[in-house]
């Protein structure tokens, strides 16, 4: 929710911390309001589903676990913390103007799987992100990073995906 000028999680925001006489609470941005502070998250989750938000594991699948060294595990250490709260989506000025924009959290999820040493679908993932409504729509405003209650950085993840695409020399859009 938008609470006194910033997107925050209402469940963990302390009134004292706001240090204000008046508290103004508004629903999450860019999404249709169903009632009062409740928004319809359909678009948000459609974007999430669009980017193939699941591990496509390398073959052959081992009998026990995949071996993933601690240094490889630490590469996904942050991005896995995303709780899909939508704060970044509400704060993103691009999400407000481009209805088809995938948005910060979906692209962060893309990066989460791109950096997972167990994943085998780099090409497919870059193809989805490499779109005029994908990573190239991000204007690096960094509002997402500013509001993320989990202190994640979707804008940085997006720029990393851009670099991956450019490296392959296949920019589209």
């Amino acid at each position, binding site marked *: 929710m938008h609470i006194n000028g910033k997107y925050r999680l209402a469940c*963990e925001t*302390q009134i*004292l911390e706001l240090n204000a006489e008046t508290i103004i609470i508004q629903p999450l941005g860019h999404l249709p309001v*169903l*009632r*009062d502070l*409740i928004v*319809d*998250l359909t678009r948000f*989750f459609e974007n999430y*589903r669009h980017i*193939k*938000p*699941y*591990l*496509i*594991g390398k073959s052959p*699948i*081992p*009998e*026990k*676990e*995949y*071996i*993933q*060294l*601690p240094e*490889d*595990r630490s590469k*996904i250490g942050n991005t*896995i*913390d995303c*709780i*899909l709260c939508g704060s970044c989506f509400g704060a993103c000025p691009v999400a407000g103007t481009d209805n088809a924009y995938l948005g910060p959290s979906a692209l962060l999820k893309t990066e989460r*799987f791109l950096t*997972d040493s*167990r*994943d085998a679908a780099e090409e497919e993932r870059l193809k989805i992100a490499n779109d005029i409504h994908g990573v190239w729509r991000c204007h690096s405003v960094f509002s997402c990073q500013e509001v993320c209650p989990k202190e994640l950085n979707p804008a940085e993840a997006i720029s990393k995906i851009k670099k991956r695409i450019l490296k392959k020399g296949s920019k589209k859009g």
Partner: protein
Amino acid sequence: MYNFDAVIIGGGLAGLRAAYELVNNKIKTALISKVYPIRSHSNAAQGGVNAALGNIEKGLPDNWEKHAYDTIKGSDYIGDQDAIMKMCKEAPYRIYEIEHWGCPFSRTDEGRIAQRPFGGSGFPRTAYATDRTGHAMLHTLYEQIMRKNEKNKYLTFFDEWFVTKLIVKDKSVKGIIALDLKTGDLHPFRTDAAIVATGGVGRIYSKSTNALINTGKGLAIAYRAGADLKDMEFIQFHPTTLYGTNILVTEGARGEGAYLLNNIGERFLKNYEDSKRAMEIAPRDIVARNMIREIKKGNAVNNLYLHLDLRRLGEKLISKRLPGVIELARKFAGINAITEPIPVEPAQHYTMGGIDVDINCRTKIDGLYAAGEAACVSVHGANRLGGNSLLETIVFGCIAGEAAGEYLSKIKKKNERMYLMESALREEKKGIEDLYKREGNESSFKLFEEMSIAMWNNIGIFRNEVQLKEGLENLKRIKERCNNVGIRYKGKRFNFELYWLLELIGSIDIAEAVIMGAIERKESRGSHYRTDYPKRDDENYLKHTIATYSPEGAKLSYKPVTLGYVVPAESYFISRRILTPLLPSGSPAAALCAAPAPCILMENTALPVRHRF
């Protein structure tokens, strides 16, 4: 009218795991959840999930038999031993499966799944993803279901829908009725199989670590439809929850070496017989009881709470191993856990009881299944071990999905139910319309609060006959006052006054079963502590309590516990006196009684283990 082969109620780990199984078998399924599935309470699990992977070998290698032994002992011998063995045997396979699906477990130096020690386990057996294991597992499962569902769409999600009724005829499931919270409309679902996976009932207590959604509504609709509830009196209390909000501070904090202190900074656990040896890492129920005793003595800080002191661990270790604890202390108590002690108090944490199901998650109603915390198989008995709750969800979620699929393939589909569904819908609609018309001056929010405070005061950590009976009377009064709840807001969209009234009616049924079970269990076992009967009584109470719904209140009966592998012994840190009278003389069990080491009898080696990747 919606038409599905199977309906799953609840979208946490158990519900999603069942959904995966059904979708994998191309069964048209609806998953109904009152929140978005990824907001389910499975999310909140911190510490980890148990499985004898043996990735960290310390002394002897771990195996599933040892895991089963620890679980049976932890259950204070009232867990069904066949079910426990099945769970422990399948554990590694379910863990490898979810790892293959992308679950970001923490790793050992060799790149294997990391495991840490947890209370009640003889080995570092708890696999974890930092202190956010539930979150990691829930998202992984949800993700893989997205993958499965991408092409064929066998699964339909009904997010922010609330099931109000289960339709049963001739002892088999015919359908359900659910309320679309977004529109306020009731919809019938025709289905032959329903799986209840709605989690625990923690919110019937005012002090609880559970999410607000954990009201027990899933149990209540199954109960009213004729399914039994089992062992409801066994409610686990967690010693360390943040004072005031009761947000969980993981057992890992004490495991890493934090101290519990009273108002003069003394480690008071040393003053109690049952905790003086193990101190902070004594079992949850013992620590929680001694904390309450200490508070009652007047030794609480500011007469309100006790201190959990992490300071001696140092900034480096705290930040590395317990980042979640630092975050919640800062956000919810304004405390810097590195330099200040955290104010804590015990609170309700887990529901060991639940819908009575067999080892294949079947209830006594054909086509009705339950899994996860909503069910009682029972694998936790009188006290759950840390790390076994997440395990239960993925093992038995899978089994419930399989069992439902098998049932669906066997029955003949009948199409003569239109009339039944329509009349049930009419009745339910009229019920809700009547609620809207009410003009009483009671509020559903307030009554819910009063009920939960009464539960905390009368059926809390310490119980006795006088208090329990008083609790039952209080509950009856609240039940009567429900008739005077007025709904002031008449709108249909997200009407929370109506919603909480429907929740309250369900929670009262459940609370009643908890109290009645507690009154009749005249012994102390695991989490159920009777000051008037402080000893465990295997002769009279080594049995499951079964509660059956009747309009006058719960009707109680009892069911035997499945034994046969481990012999009941006095639990925990007390001497191992073996209760030989329970055993047929000359049996292999009796012969093993005298053994000083953990004894497991391998009589049944035919437990099925499924490898399916």
